[in-house]
């Protein structure tokens, strides 16, 4: 179904009635800067103006960087400098917003140095390990 078959009526206050030709839905939308958020049938969608390449790049960075994705506390360091680890091994356990955030080895490799301490509050993007 193409978007052109879909009729949208703004009801005000972020409410939208959308009709796809078979039925109608009450949906919600809001935009802030380039980011447009839509809530539709229980799903949340973020349509942003950033080109896909940039989004991809951000995503792959999050998966491989040995840094916290957000401010977090180091609750466990599971490796020693010099230790060899296999892909997927748990290296460090962080806690942020009361949730555990595991930092795992992105590939087989060796830990050269551990650059954080247990109990430390670490900031996003700051390396936790020297890994190769």
């Amino acid at each position, binding site marked *: 179904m193409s978007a052109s078959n879909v009729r949208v009526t703004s009801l005000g206050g972020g409410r939208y009635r959308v009709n796809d030709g078979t039925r109608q*839905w009450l949906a*919600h939308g809001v935009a802030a800067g380039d980011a447009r958020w*839509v809530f539709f049938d229980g799903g949340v*969608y973020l349509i942003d103006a950033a080109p896909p390449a940039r989004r991809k790049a951000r995503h792959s960075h999050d998966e491989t960087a040995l840094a916290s994705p957000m401010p977090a506390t180091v609750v466990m360091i599971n490796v020693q400098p010099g230790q060899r680890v296999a892909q997927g091994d748990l290296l460090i356990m962080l806690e942020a917003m009361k949730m555990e955030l595991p930092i795992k080895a992105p590939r087989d490799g060796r830990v050269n140095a551990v650059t954080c301490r247990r109990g430390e509050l670490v900031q996003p993007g700051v390396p936790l390990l020297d890994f190769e």
Partner: protein
Amino acid sequence: MLRRILIANRGEIAVRVIRACRELGIESVAVYSDADAQALHASLADHAVRIGPAAPSESYLLVEAILAAARATKADAIHPGYGFLSENAAFAHACEQAGIVFVGPPGDAIERMGSKIAAREIAHRAGVPVVPGSIPADQSDGAIAGAAHVLGFPVLLKPSAGGGGIGMKAVREEAALLPSIAQARREASAAFGNDTLYVERLVEQPRHVEIQVIADAHGQVLHLFERECSIQRRHQKIVEESPSVALTPALRARMGEAAVRVARAAGYRNAGTIEFLLDGAGDAARFYFLEMNTRLQVEHPVTEQVTGVDLVRAQIAVASGERLPWSQAEIAQRGHAIEVRVYAEDPSRNDLPQAGPLLLYREPVMPGIRVDAGVVEGGQISVHYDPMIAKLIASGDTRDAARRRALAALRSYPILGIRTNVPFLIALLEHPRFVSGELDTHFLDREGAALRSALATEPPAEVLAIADALLPGVEADLRVGQDAGRDADPWSALQNVRV
């Protein structure tokens, strides 16, 4: 009755207690960190006191700051909520010493039940089964392996100093035993600076079933039936319900009586929860005492919905020295309630917690739906605290009616500006094994990845059409609507509205 209660907490539970105070004609005092200066709880209370910077260790966990706020506002009681200082025996003692009523158990009871080993011993002596296990006095590989052999496989190795799941190792066969001991020691040492191990029999597919209790200062100890909390993720509950489909009336009665025995043995007072592991279902099932939570639980609304008892009001009554107004026979379950916890997290990125603005936030208002939240549209989910946005509790006359209500409500719960687990919760409540009630604590370990990967990621045509309408400059024309003329546009009457 108490006159003025300080709530040593934030978010939804602070709001819950403030509202209970208002209904009872008791004044409320909120405390807030700098990050919460504009938070709902800090605006809703009759009084509000700043207690420090955003970090919990400098505000909500600071015993002296909270006691100072209580003294400054002449509060005669403190409600600790859950988390933060709620299970801190020193805090309860400090309140007692300051002449302030602690709306919770006596400090001694917190202390007793706060030690897993002491709590286990209390339960055992009260005739309540515990999962067989021990901390070998000799912590050699051989002695630990010997303890495992006595219990029989499968066994679980646990750091004795630990909590959560860190360092826990399931061992199902002889060959894995020694390597697992070494690994568990290493993780225990790294996480807790102590490599003492505890060995217990592993219950393979247990349910987590807990019993709510409440005790007054006059010797009355009641249970308020069970909550089934097997849907957990990283040892965090995300769905709770009552009744549990695994319990028969006879089993329910036995577990309720066991919980009351433990609470009596602990010298307990006020609301608390006895957590059990349940092995099997029905009359033949076995249950084992796990631990006691010496506070109000996040999931207390589930019990309130099925029993009709207002637990926060009962807490305040008990703390005021009143007698509980019911006998055990007067407490009954009716219908079914399911709670889902709505988190700011990204299901597509390993449930990474999210912080950010609630650009649009509208709670579902419909029959049989209760929402306990501490946020409003325009507010923020702060990076400093728990990412739980709200609890949605659905009630119905049957489990399926409650489940369908929860689904309808989640589909009417727009939260925009941050990622949430709402789509994940919808998929979970529609999972065939959730529908049939075949739950155990490993449910999400097994099914979570599949549930997450099935979440829609590509926006459908309807969403793209709405996104087009949200482009700058488009909205003004759209607002006129396609189905109706300008006169019918509700916003045409709302020119120059300022808030």
